[in-house]
């Protein structure tokens, strides 16, 4: 299958070919690729693409995927501390 037709990030319409081009240009970690291609910035916040991209970064850098950092999880998609919920009952 053509790399251009394999969609890696559905929110921002980024293909496998785009990911490989970014890696070849020298953007070799998730946060850098995110800034150039917007992967992880759409409504799903990387929940679909992050593991796929992690594997591509690992393959390119010839390292174990477990050592590849993915991007920072940002609110609103993140766990909530129960104490914060308990203490925000001011209204």
């Amino acid at each position, binding site marked *: 299958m053509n790399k251009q037709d394999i969609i890696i990030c559905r929110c921002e319409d980024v293909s496998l070919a785009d990911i490989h081009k970014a890696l070849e240009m020298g953007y070799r970690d998730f946060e850098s690729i995110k800034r*150039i291609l917007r992967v992880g*910035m759409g*409504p799903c*916040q990387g929940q679909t693409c992050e593991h796929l991209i992690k594997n591509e970064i690992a393959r390119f850098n010839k390292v174990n995927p477990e050592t590849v950092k993915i991007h920072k999880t*940002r609110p*609103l998609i993140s766990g909530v501390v129960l104490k914060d919920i308990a203490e925000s009952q001011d209204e």
Partner: protein
Amino acid sequence: MNKAEIVIIGAGITGLSVAYNLAKKGMKDIVVFDKSHFLAGATARCGAGVRQQWATKLNCILARKSIEFFSKANEILEYEKDIEFKQGGYLILSSSKEEDIQFEKNVKLQNSLGIPSKLLTKEEALKIVPHLNKASFTSASFCHTDGHVNPFLMSEAYYLAAKKLGVKFYFFNEVKAINVTDGKVTKVITDKMEVITKRVVNAAGGFAKEVGEMVGLDIPVYSENHEILVTERTKPLLDPMVMSFSMNIYCQQVPHGSILMGRNNPDALHNHDISSSWQFLDEMAKTVNHILPEVAKQRVIRTWGGSYNISPDFQPIISDSSISDFYIACGYSGHGFMFAPITGELLTEIIIGEPLEDYANALHIDRFKDMEKIDKEHSVV
């Protein structure tokens, strides 16, 4: 041992612009260090707005000259993609007599410096953004040549152009020490390597004060967290950036379709915190719901924070220093991205010893020796 003609600390928009401009003037052996990955700091966290409506002469000139560059940046830098320069204008709302008086003064100053801003009545403002809450403001000022630039792509354009001219970038290299001998910089030491150099540029953004301390220089700046949120991509809702100083909001739809908005926290501590708080989300939602109820119907998908590096007069420091060949570009007070083009040009002139235009002498760090005389910028969020 590695040698460099100059070492630039920080590969954010400021360091990138300085590196590109120096290389374009023919300087060789330029090294740029960054402690993290590409655009880890404030550049990638900024609100993406570029405006010329300021209350001080200095900020107006810096902004106007930078906008001139943004309008030609794709061609000058031979960028294959597009920096997304969009001139939807900035609509700055007034909601009090004091703001009316301030804006009248601002527009007069801006016009005298060639910036085509104007005062608008409420009705005129509503023609530009029909869904503004009529009850939330009384009048406005507007400049149609203000607008938006994509910070990621603008940075990449500088980065690729600088690399093409031979600038060497080292990411994940945190500067730990700068050696000074007889009042002159001699060596920069990172956690991974050492470089012998004649000159150093401090373009460390939120960490500019700490980098100054490495050479014993006290730069009167501090860092402060400013939070932002972004909505899902949506239909065209806002052409200009809508802003209010008194209601504490800036809000713009970027070409991508998502809407960015931010406000300051008057109780923010002076430190390197860049975390997200629920208080911001709560206050931001209430503010935007009051001024722009149509925008408040959109879904928020992400919030983040970034450092403003704040100077005593909310204007940048672009100058040499009491340490020979140690140069500074910091203290942008939240506006480093929009002033980056002129920063690179001016600091290059300072470094290679070309005469400066008169106005630029006011950017010197020595202006803070007499705090009574500084011309403070008030039009900031």
